[in-house]
């Protein structure tokens, strides 16, 4: 049991906790939203769910991944 005092729940599959390949703005958002909790969490045990569906991530990431593969 890790018992982290603040957590950002990312509703995405295993192996994708910071989003999708080459989607730098999304990767950055996961980090900054998690770090924001350091300032905003009022009580230990705070869990905030990132309101971004995996379907939307995949949609945005498809083209980026295709471009990235050819790099």
């Amino acid at each position: 049991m890790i018992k982290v005092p603040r957590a950002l729940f990312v509703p995405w599959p295993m192996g994708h906790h910071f989003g999708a390949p080459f989607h730098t703005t999304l990767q950055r958002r996961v980090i900054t939203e998690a770090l924001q909790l350091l300032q905003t969490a009022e009580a230990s045990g705070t869990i905030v769910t990132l309101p971004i569906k995996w379907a939307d991530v995949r949609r945005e990431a498809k083209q980026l991944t295709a471009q990235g593969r050819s790099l």
Partner: protein
Amino acid sequence: MMEAVESLKLDPRETGEQLRAGLWQTINQRYPGSMITKADYVPLARLSKPLSQSRVTLISSCGVHLKSDRPMNVCHPFGDFTFRRVPSGAQQSDLIIHQLKYPHDDADLDINVIFPIERLQELVAEEVIGGLTGNFFSFIGYNMDPERFEQTVAAGIADAVEEEHADVALLAPA
């Protein structure tokens, strides 16, 4: 071909229906006590200085390490009770993923998907965060003896994080 397109439309990841909705409640009902409650949490430690002056470390169960480092033992039935230090200034080309328990095809394309080392380097350059510890920490999440894990990997990383004078630790599963 048409069948393939039809089946893609039914994929819940495509239709936007989340597979994890209600998962926590389900686990609590089936395995009472397995999910921690508010009373179990450790006291909240406040930031002693602004984020822009804080030193951040990254701790991940993704099994990423330097290519030059000793590989994780991914074959042992009980797991690998060691951790690796990953220099926070490392480049993506210096790193390799040694873990079999999660899909890392996307992380192989861009390691920041599980171990966002480049994004953290950028946040330092932009002065959003004050700095990074010299090393980040990585281990494999497959460890079948929680007590031994706590005494070896968790305690070892906790000591190392203190030695590196981290103000903030970002914990990431994989």
